[in-house]
């Protein structure tokens, strides 16, 4: 039973439950009114309607899981950072669960804050930037399956592979973010945000290439553009083992794409105040921040699916749990490096991207080609 099947069954059951009352209501009413009622009920019970509802429910489930994970990530990040820095981290809000509720408290605080748009800002761009940023990230999220049967699908076939080329789609959506950052930086009408936006564009575009080259090696090995095919191909051996260079390159590129510490130049606190988010406040900033962690989650999930065998693991835990555990490990590793390293400079980050990571990615691709032609995969 896959997620679609489950949702379909749930919606079907719910519709039947409601229809039970609905039809009886129709029986009591005059015939011309009762016919209308039964017509509506029949429409609700039709396959197309229930399938659409089921897909919406699937999306909702995936989003809720993602948001809970984002809260977990923020908490984990702060707590882990705190212990590494020799302090407690979140402590009092939600004392019994390790200060987990601190994030919710921060979220509420951001919700009730006033949203200020600078007087000389480009209003439309200023409003659109967070929407594009959040929307593109959620779209990338939608394509990632959490388990063999746990994905946003459209049929109940247990052997279905979901969306064809879902990995390509995920990377396409993942790469929209610099566009919105550039819009945010430009429309804020502030020199810091402008420089931050420009840096972001330069950085993300230069890191997109090595990242996609490593991903191409994975596609090559798996012979598929979809996550299902890629993860299924890793049943015997994770791609992270033969393509270790690719894994390293991918994680470094991921850190740059998600803009975390050694590569967080666009929002460099010391010289650019807060970079492209300087002028944002209230929940708009909250969205940016939340989406930053969401992108961290997506990045971890991508690395898991592409290199770490996805949901494959010993059978005592269900698929999604294995998937999330691996994603968390990748995230914690990135965070660990994040809090241990200073920030690199803008010329250095481009140097690293073009002079180190691109050759590594090409080398990785060559290894993949060799392995594939040798017939080992």
């Amino acid at each position: 039973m896959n997620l679609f099947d489950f949702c379909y069954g749930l919606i079907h059951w719910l519709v039947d439950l409601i229809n039970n009352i609905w039809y009886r209501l129709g029986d009591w009413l005059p015939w011309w009114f009762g016919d209308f009622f039964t017509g509506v009920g029949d429409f609700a019970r039709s396959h197309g309607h229930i399938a659409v509802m089921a897909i919406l429910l699937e999306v909702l489930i995936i989003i809720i899981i993602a948001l809970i994970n984002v809260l977990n990530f923020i908490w984990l990040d702060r707590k882990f950072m705190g212990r590494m820095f020799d302090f407690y981290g979140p402590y009092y809000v939600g004392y019994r669960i390790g200060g987990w509720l601190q994030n919710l408290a921060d979220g509420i605080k951001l919700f009730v804050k006033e949203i200020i748009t600078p007087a000389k800002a480009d209003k439309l761009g200023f409003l659109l930037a967070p929407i594009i940023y959040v929307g593109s990230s959620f779209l990338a999220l939608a394509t990632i399956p959490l388990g063999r049967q746990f994905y946003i699908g459209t049929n109940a076939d247990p052997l279905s592979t979901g969306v064809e080329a879902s990995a390509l789609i995920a990377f396409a959506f993942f790469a929209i973010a610099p566009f919105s950052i550039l819009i945010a930086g430009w429309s804020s009408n502030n020199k810091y945000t402008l420089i931050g936006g420009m840096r972001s564009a330069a950085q993300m575009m230069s890191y997109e290439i090595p990242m996609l080259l490593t991903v191409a090696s994975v596609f090559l090995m798996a012979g598929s553009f979809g996550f299902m095919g890629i993860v299924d191909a890793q049943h015997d051996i994770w791609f992270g083992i033969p393509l270790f260079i690719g894994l390293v390159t991918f994680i470094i590129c991921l850190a740059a794409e998600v803009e975390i510490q050694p590569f967080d130049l666009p929002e460099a606190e010391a010289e650019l105040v807060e970079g492209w988010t300087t002028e944002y406040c209230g929940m708009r900033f909250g969205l940016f921040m939340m989406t930053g962690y969401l992108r961290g989650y997506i990045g971890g999930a991508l690395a898991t699916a592409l290199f770490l065998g996805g949901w494959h693991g010993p059978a005592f835990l269900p698929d999604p749990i294995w998937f999330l555990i691996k994603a968390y490990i990748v995230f914690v590793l990135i965070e660990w490096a994040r809090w241990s390293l200073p920030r690199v400079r803008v010329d250095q980050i481009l140097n690293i991207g073009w002079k180190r990571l691109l050759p590594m990615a090409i080398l990785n691709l060559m290894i993949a080609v060799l392995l594939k032609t040798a017939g080992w995969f």
Partner: protein
Amino acid sequence: MAQKRKIPGSGGIVIRPMIRTGKQFVNSFIKGKPNTILYPYQILDLPPTYRGKHTLDFNRCIGCGNCIQICPNDCMWMEKLEDPELGKIERPGVDMGRCLFCGLCVEVCPTVAIHHTVEFELADYKRDKLRYGPKELRDDKFADKFKEERTKQRLPVLDMSKCTSCEKCAGACPEMVIAMMPIENVGRSKPEINLAKCTSCEKCVIVCPEKALEMKEIYESYFEMPEPKFLLKDCTGCGACAKACPADAIYMLEMPGTEKILKDGKKGKPKKRAVFVLEKCVGCGKCFRACKFEAIEMPGVRK
């Protein structure tokens, strides 16, 4: 002493810093606890020398106001009080909102009556509440608990009202630090004790027939205080300075030969003049401020 630059190897890209932070993580999460002091629940240990809120010993304080004079921020003031035991007194209050906790008032106090406690949580909702009057500062027992750092010495102190100028103390002193100085227009002399050389042998106290000399504990002073200069020609003998003096260092003595002849031929009361026992003077300048005839000069003291 030119150092060679250590170029970190490839492990320095990310592994070595991560090992360092990982060690700290293990130390503060698995082996022990973080270094943080959870402030409202745990409180930092403060040393006894910490300069927090003031406390005032009413019995020790003589109300000289030296603390008010030395305060760099003018945050202290004198308040007149009526105390059941001590009578009419003057004691200082402190405005914590302006105080910069420099500790000069504590250092300058001649009787070590004012102290700092380790209390530092003084924030309040209104500025008026930060003005701590003497009654709120009062803690007569604090000075006993406090470990005194300033050295004190038992020294003979003169009560001029009892002195008869018999000069026995000067004769008894083995160190020859007591000199009899004649007082102008009074016809008597007063023993002046060079306290810096005194060895506290108490011989002068024992020999004094009128018990005018008494051993008292005097604290060492770190500051050179201004000394009052008395101008006899301007003195009217009103006695305001003697009343104002917090250290009882000024005595009004009669000047023989200045009696007014009254109408009936009898002699009236003689004119008085102020006599300063400078060993007891704390340099507060109250006499200078009290004198309306400018018979007392104190350079460097504001009127």
